[in-house]
């Protein structure tokens, strides 16, 4: 899969067809040769019993069932991204168009052996829809009358996408627009990018052109914690000056100097990232 090195400046709107083709090939190759498979119906029936059990547990409060499915999906998504990245080692996506292709051609193919269609791009290319043609989750399923209007049967998929995308710093909203099970003509799932999460994990790379454009810091607890560190350092520094400055401090008080410099270093680390 020696993917052609993505050309320097792919236009933000559409990535080249060769990229799409190579993603398609990657997805198919990994699905065919490198993924262990299992009977879809076992997967469908398991999911079916989970949803119907949830409906009983929540006494048919389908709003709650939707939320619960979403949070289960989210828990899966944050773990599934690691499996996806370990399996494909795809480079970071330049823009949302590229991300949507990776999701449809690689992710869905590798995990569910389906390739949803990408449609309904919004003007600013920040939201798109996935049309699930043969959704393996909703085989054999018919919603009861009272669930017809409220339950999103495959809501776990939204959670998975939300969790996985968040792990690669794409904070998105994912929700179902229509579902065949509700009598709609097609099953449509909408993904809207809210913002790029600041790389609070120093991912060890320059922010790509795309991220610069969207870069917005968001105050996280971690920033608060680092503020505390700075405060401690300043207090520590002042106290250190009062003590007699032992001649060869460096040699015998190895641990202490390490501590000071450690905070010295943390101070810089924090000042860069905040």
């Amino acid at each position, binding site marked *: 899969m020696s993917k052609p090195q993505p050309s320097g400046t792919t236009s933000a709107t559409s990535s080249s067809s060769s990229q799409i083709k190579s993603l398609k090939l990657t997805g198919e190759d990994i699905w065919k040769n490198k993924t262990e498979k299992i009977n879809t119906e076992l997967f469908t029936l398991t999911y079916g019993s989970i949803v119907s059990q949830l409906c009983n547990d929540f006494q048919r409060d389908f709003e709650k069932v939707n939320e619960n499915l979403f949070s289960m999906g989210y828990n899966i998504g944050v773990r599934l991204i690691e499996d996806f990245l370990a399996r494909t080692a795809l480079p970071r996506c330049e823009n949302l168009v590229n991300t949507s292709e990776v999701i449809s051609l690689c992710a869905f193919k590798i995990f569910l052996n389906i390739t949803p269609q990408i449609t309904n791009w919004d003007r600013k290319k920040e939201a798109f829809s996935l049309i699930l043609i043969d959704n393996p989750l909703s085989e054999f399923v018919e919603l009861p009358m009272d669930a017809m209007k409220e339950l999103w049967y495959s809501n776990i998929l939204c959670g998975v996408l939300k969790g996985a995308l968040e792990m690669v710093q794409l904070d998105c909203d994912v929700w179902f627009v229509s579902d065949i099970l509700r009598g709609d003509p097609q099953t449509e799932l909408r993904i809207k990018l809210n913002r790029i999460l600041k790389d609070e994990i120093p991912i060890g790379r320059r922010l790509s052109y795309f991220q610069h454009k969207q870069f917005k810091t968001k105050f996280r607890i971690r920033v608060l914690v680092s503020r505390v560190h700075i405060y401690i350092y300043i207090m520590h520094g002042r106290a250190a000056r009062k003590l007699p*400055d032992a001649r060869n401090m460096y040699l015998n008080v190895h641990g202490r100097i390490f501590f000071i410099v450690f905070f010295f270093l943390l101070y810089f680390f924090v000042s860069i990232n905040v």
Partner: protein
Amino acid sequence: MAIYSFWIFDKHCNCIFDREWTLTTNSTSGTTNSKQNQETAKLLYGMIYSLRSITQKLSRGLNKNEMRSISTGKYRVHTYCTASGLWFVLLSDFKQQSYSQVLEYIYSSIYVTYVANNLFSPYDFAENEDEMRGQGFRKITNRRFIDSLENFLSPLVGQ
């Protein structure tokens, strides 16, 4: 393109010399002891310091385990630390395996002759306490040192 920049740190965590080449093709481009590099110098020192402490911690046995080079995604940092606490740091690309011979030569022949043995140049670049622990600003300005360093390093810049 082989070398990007060259730094010397003393035992007071001060950067006493820095030379950066900005144009890959022209070995005379770039700055010497420039002001904007102070931030980078502190960062570089911080990185090397903590990696050295890790190296000490992880080293086994009696003989001193010395850190040789740090590679990142884009460049490689070669370090040569003398017993007297001087650090010679060279940032380069990935072509060359190791620059320890170059750094040793710089230390033994250029630095010692033009700075250590030079009566006029101060032995310790931090005159008083508050110039220690990274606050120091004095640089090696000895012209002959800079020229000889230049002659020695410039052929490596464009390699």
